[in-house]
């Protein structure tokens, strides 16, 4: 029985970043979750990291043997929901996204 590696499973769905890619980056650069995000675009897609943020933080913390901190490394930035340029510009009925 061949044990298939889980490294090709997707972590960031929007940017299609795999677990293996994230692990490699952390091992290679000994870096923070923020650096992982900047190097791989994990958590920078359409959803704004709403789904994968906690997983990225956890994987990085585990590999680096760190405790969970009170403040997140992967900060939230507005807009925290996908919005159209029309909505950003103040047009209330722009639903053509």
């Amino acid at each position: 029985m061949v044990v298939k590696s889980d490294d090709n499973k997707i972590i960031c769905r929007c940017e299609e970043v795999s677990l293996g890619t994230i692990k490699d980056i952390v091992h290679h650069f000994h870096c923070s979750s923020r650096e992982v995000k900047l190097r791989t675009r994990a958590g920078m897609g359409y959803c704004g990291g709403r789904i994968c943020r906690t997983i990225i933080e956890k994987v990085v913390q585990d590999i680096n043997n760190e405790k969970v901190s009170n403040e997140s490394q992967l900060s939230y930035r507005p807009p925290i929901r996908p919005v159209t340029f029309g909505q950003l510009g103040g047009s209330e009925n722009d639903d053509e996204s």
Partner: protein
Amino acid sequence: MSDLLIIGAGPAGLSAAIAAAEEGLSVTVIDEFPKAGGRLLGQLHQEPNGEWWNGIQKGEQLSQRAHQLGVTIQCEVSVYDISQSKNGWEVYTTRGEYKAEKLLLATGATESPIPVKGWTLPGVMTIGAAQIMGNVHRVKPGNSCIIIGANVLSMAIANELKLCGVNVKEIIIPKADITSNEAGNPEQVLSSLMRLTHLAPTPILRQLGKIGKMVHPKIAIRLFPKKGIRMFDIPLRLKTAALEIVGDRFATGVRTVNIKANGEIDHTSEKVVDADFVCIAGGLTPLSELASIIGCSFKYIPELGGHVPVHNEQMQTNIPGLYVAGNITGIESAKVAMAQGRVAGLAIAADITNDWEQMETSINKAIENVNITRDKALIQFHPGISDARKKFYQKSEVNLTQISKIKKREA
């Protein structure tokens, strides 16, 4: 401009709106979802006294009461940014800008993901999504399903899916790896289920709770049958792990394997179990992104489900004029959220009228009610909530001047 803007029309937000409006405040409530009620909309379970808790009905009652008091409730409004000005808050939404003197975040919780291999296939959803499809939209996601992730939430929703006519084939756990955490460890899963209170919503959980007082989880998991135990007639299999979700264009089943008490995999037992859809249940965590962009301080408290905005028992955050209530302050039952909402509504009324003295008795009574409700809660999502809360509030750095003045005078 309203006196108070509440983000989130769930049990906490609506209860806060009612309490504040009863004190004469002008209140607006906005929510992303097409319908008010929040997490109440999904809830349907039987309480130990035999009565059914019908969340949809409860949500409607709260909305109606709020309407009677002149509260404006607007749905399908998503907030994407917030800024604070001298006069209060400016809230930017997909339906334009809202202004208010005080702001209450009652955004609730979000589900924690567990990335199982194949989880991006169509037909894979979170357990909460399946609940919303069934109970709110009245759409059956499929005829049969497998649930990956054994916790209080997944067991409650498994029963709801069964009531919707779905054949829930089994509740299993994810394969242990760096992303699945304790959810993939049979002993830890059983241990957290065993710590449930004697008030747990099902006889089997109550039994587990009793056993938990006598037997160490390490021994209990060894005795746990490989075939699992039945709960609401659904097999709960803590010694079966999901290796991957299979399917070509959409999910058609789960490749599972037997595991031992210590998590060791028995590869000879590998098989594929067919299902129309697959639910992943990773538990809940406070949805606090808005508190974060406003600049609240945070504290990581595992018992409360993760990172929570720092706040005091009056539900004030460390940002003046910003309040929180409900699951954003920690994962607890809807009843606790409602009680917290009332505290927040009253505290905001006191804040606006600047008459804390007048309101003190009713605020303290409401706080007391939160504690009583918490102690009586049917479902404790995480063990040790009460203690973690007490510790958190004792250490809380949030001391609004008015409150501390009252306290000092008392002393």
